[in-house]
C-alpha cells in the first residue's frame, strides 16, 4: 500500500492529449489532478463525496465521479472532460442543446450533466424521457428544476439521430 503522500507516476490521455509520467500524490483525487495539475477547471466539485455528480468525467467512455476516483486509479485510461466533448472545435450537440433549451442557470452543475448526458446518448441514442430522468438522477442541479435539462437531452438525441440518419442515408 502506498502512503497517502507518496508520489507515483501516471500516464493517461485527457481530451485526446497524452500525458506521460505525471507525478502525483497517491491520495490526489482525479478531480484535483484535472483541475490543479492540468488546469482543466471545467470539472467542478459540488460535494466531494460522490453525491452530486458535478465532477462527472468520462473514463474510457463511462461516466465516473472524479471526486471519488484517485488520479492513480485512472492510470492508463482515456478521459474526456467537459472541455473535450466537442469535436474539431465544434461543440457537442448536447452542449448546443443546453444553451438552446436554457438547461443551465449558474452553470456550476452543467459540466457534470453534460458529460453524463453524452455518455447516455452514446449508450442509448433514443432514450425516453423517463430513461433520461433516471440516468441523470444522480446529478443535482439547484437552479433549473431539471425540466429544460431533460428537454435539451431529448432534443440533442433527436438531432444526433437525424445527423446519423443523414450521414448513412438510412432512416434514423
Amino acid at each position, binding site marked *: 500500500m502506498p502512503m497517502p503522500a507518496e508520489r507515483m507516476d501516471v500516464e493517461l490521455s485527457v481530451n485526446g492529449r497524452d500525458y506521460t509520467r505525471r507525478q502525483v500524490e497517491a491520495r490526489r483525487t482525479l478531480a484535483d489532478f484535472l483541475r490543479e495539475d492540468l488546469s482543466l477547471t471545467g470539472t467542478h466539485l459540488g*460535494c466531494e*463525496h460522490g453525491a452530486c455528480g458535478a465532477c462527472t468525467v468520462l473514463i474510457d467512455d463511462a461516466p465516473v465521479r472524479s471526486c471519488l476516483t484517485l488520479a492513480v486509479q485512472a492510470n492508463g485510461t482515456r478521459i474526456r472532460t467537459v472541455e473535450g466533448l466537442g469535436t474539431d472545435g465544434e461543440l457537442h450537440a448536447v452542449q448546443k442543446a443546453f444553451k438552446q433549451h436554457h438547461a443551465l442557470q449558474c452553470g*456550476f452543475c452543467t459540466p457534470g450533466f453534460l458529460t453524463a448526458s453524452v455518455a447516455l446518448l452514446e449508450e442509448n441514442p433514443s432514450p425516453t424521457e423517463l430513461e433520461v430522468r*433516471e440516468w441523470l*438522477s444522480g446529478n*443535482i442541479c*439547484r437552479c433549473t428544476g431539471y425540466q429544460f435539462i431533460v428537454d435539451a437531452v431529448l432534443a440533442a438525441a433527436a438531432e444526433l439521430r437525424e445527423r446519423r440518419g443523414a450521414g448513412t442515408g438510412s432512416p434514423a
Partner: protein
Amino acid sequence: MGLFGHRQVRAEDDNLIAGRGRYVDDLRFPGMLHVAIVRSQVARAKIKVDVAAALALPGVHAVFTADDLPLSARILPDCHPNPALRHPRGPAVLAAGEVRYVGEPIVAIVADSRYLAEDAADLVLVEYDEMPAVIDLEKAILPGSPLVHPDVPSNLGARIPVVTGNTDAAFAQAFYVARERLEIQRGAGQAMETRGVVAYWNEYESRMVVWNVSQVPFVHRTAIANALGLPENSVQVLNPDVGGGFGYKGLTYTEDLLVPVIARKLGCPIKWIEDRREHLIASYHERTQIHHLEMAVTQDGVILGIRGRFLYDAGAYTPWGPVVPLLTAVNIPGPYKVPNYKVDADIVYTNTVPTAPVRGAGRPQACYVCERLLDKVGHELKIDPAELRRRNLIQPDEFPYELGFISRDGTKRTYDSGDFPALLGRGLAMIKYDARREEQTKLRQEGKFIGIGLALCVEDTGLGPFEEVGMSIELDGSVTVRMGTPSQGQGQRTAFAQIVADELAVPFEAVKVLTGNTDLVRYSIGTFASRAGVVTGSAVSIAAKQLKQRAFAIGGTMLQAQAGDLELEEGCVRVKGQPSRSVSLKDIVHTSLGESGAPLPMQEFGPGMSTVANFCPPTNTFATGCHCAVVEVDPKTCQVKILQYVAVEDFGNVINPLIVDGQVIGGLGLGIGNTFFEKVVYDEGGQILTGTFMDYLMATTMDVPRVEIDYIVTPSPLNPLGMKGAGQGGTIPVPAVLSAAVEDALQPFGVRLNHVPFSESDLFAWLGEARTRAEQAQ
C-alpha cells in the same frame, strides 16, 4: 426590434457549456496559500486551543486563532439592525474562548495546499469544557433554559408584533375559528457551488483585492474595509461566475473577513474554498418556525381575522437581524382580505447555525400557514377550497391595496397591482378543476386516491433604495453597461442587454453587461429579494433613454435637424422620412470626443456618449401567483405521485420569459425539496445529523415534475418597465399546494397535515394515527 419579452437564449452560456466558466475556485495566483478551518465539534463549550503540532507540520505557514485577529475583525457586523432586536449578537470570526454551535470556526490554518492545510487541521487540539446547550426551539424559551448568550437575559431575542384592526372584536363575532400548530423545519440554500474567498494585497495600487461569491459585494467592501482598518477606496470586491446564490450568499460570513485579514498579514494571495460538509454544517440555514395561529371566519368562510404567534429559530447569532420572521409576519395575509390581524414574531436564540434568508425568505412559511388555515376552514365548513378562496381574494379594482401595517422597508404595505381572481381562474382552468373533482370521486370508489391542492401567494419584490447603472457607447459603436448587482446565474448579461438593444437600436451582441466588480459603479445594494431585474433593470432602461436623448441632441446638431424629427434605427440617428440624412452612433461618439490635443468640438454637450442613471423605487412591487397540483397517494405505500403541476405567475412585464420560466421551475425544485426532503436535523446535543448530501436530500430529476407555466400580466406602476421580481415566486407556494393536495387525497382517512417537510414514512405514521383515532371514536 422588440427584444423585451423575447425568449432570447443567453449570452452567458457559451463559456459555461464549454467548461470555460470561471468560478472562485478556478482562480490561481502565484504564491497562493490555502486555508482550512477547524470548526467546533460541540454545541456549547468553553474551549482551549493548542496549535503547536499543526504549526510544526512542514508546509504550514501560519495558524490563526481569535487572538491573532485585529480587534476590528473579530465580530461580524449586524447587516440589518432592527431596534426590536435589543441584543443582536454577531458571529465571532474565530471563536474566542467559547463556542455556541457545532460548526463554529475556531482556528484557521494556512498551508501550501489544501491537502496540507487539512492535515494540519487534524493536528489542532481543541479542549472542550462542555456546557448545557439548547437546541429545541420551544424549550429554549422555557424558564430555566440554558442561555445561548449568558449576557442576554432570555433566549427570546425579540418579539415583533404586526397588527391591524381589532382582532379581539373580530374573533368575538366569529362563526368558526380554525386553530393550528404549524411547523416548518430547517433547510438550507445549498447552491451547487459552495462559498469561497480569494484575497490578495495589490501592491501596485495599495489595495486589498477580494474575490468572493457575494450577492452584495458593496456590503462586503464596507465590512472588509472596516475589519482591516482601510478606507473603502482601498478595497475592491470582485465576483467571478458564481454557482448559485439563493439568498444566503447575500450575507456576510466570518470567512469574508477572515481571508482578507490573513492575506493582509501574510502578504500573499490566500484561497479558502468551503467544502460541502462545512457548507451543510456551518453556512446559514433558514425556515425553522413553529406557528400557533387562529383564523376567524363567518358562516360563509369569509375571513374576519388572523391572530397568534410564531417562534423563529435564529440560531446562535443574528447576522441579518430579524428579516426572515418579519417577512413571514407581513406576508401571512397574502392575497386575502384580512381586516383584523395580530401576529407576534418571536425571535429565539438556540445553539444552532445562525439562520438568514434562503430563497423565499419567510414567505413560504407565511403562504403555508395561511393556506393550511384556509383548508381547515373549508374542511370544517364544507366549502370547496376554490370557492373559499374566491370569497376572500382582494379584487382587481381594490388596487392599490393597503394592508394596514408597515412593510419590511418601513413604508405602508400597499399592493401595487394584481388580479388574484384571474390567477386562480387560470390555474383552475389549467388543471380542469371541475373535471378533476369528478374524477376524484370516481377514483375513490375504485380505491384510488387523488387530491387537488391550490394556493395563492404574494411576494414583495424589487426593494429599494436604489441601483446605479453606468452606460457608454464605445468608439466602435458597442455598448458597455456597468452595474453593481452581481449574477449568480440569473442571466443578467442577457436580460439587461435586451433592454439596451431595444432602446438604442443596436444588436443584442453589441451590448456587454459588466458586473461583479465594486469599481464599476459608485454605489450599489445588491442582488437579492428579486430586486436586480426590477431595480437595476429600470436603471438600465433609464440610462439607455438618457443616451438616446443625448444621441438625438448631438446627432441633431451634426445633422442640423430638430431632435423631434429624429429616430434611432439600426445604430444610426436618422431624420424621419429621410434615411440618407443619418449619422451612426459610432460617428457621434467619435465626433463628440474630438481630436487629441484640439479643443472639444461641441462644447455644449461635453465629451462622449456616456451616462450614469439611478433608479430609486418608491417602495417594493408585489409579484403574485397561483399554483395548483393534482397528486395521487397510495395509502398502502404512502408514495406521492404528482400528476399535474401548474404555476400561474404575475411578474408584471417580463424581460425574458425563457429565463423567467427557468426561475419558476427551478424555484419549484426547491419548493419540492422543502415539502418532501430538505431537513437539517440536529440531535438533542446539537450535533448535525445531515452533514452530507446522502443525509440532506434535495429534489432530483425523479422528483421535480414537468411544470405547466402561464403568466397573467398586471404591470407594476412603480417602475418604468412595469416589472415585478421573479426570483422566488416558484418556491413560495409549493409546500402549501402539495400539503393541500396530499391532505385532499387522504381526506377519506382523516389525515391532517401541519408539518413540512413530510416524508412517505411520516404519512404512513399519520395514516396509522388517523386509523387509531377513527377506531377509538367508534
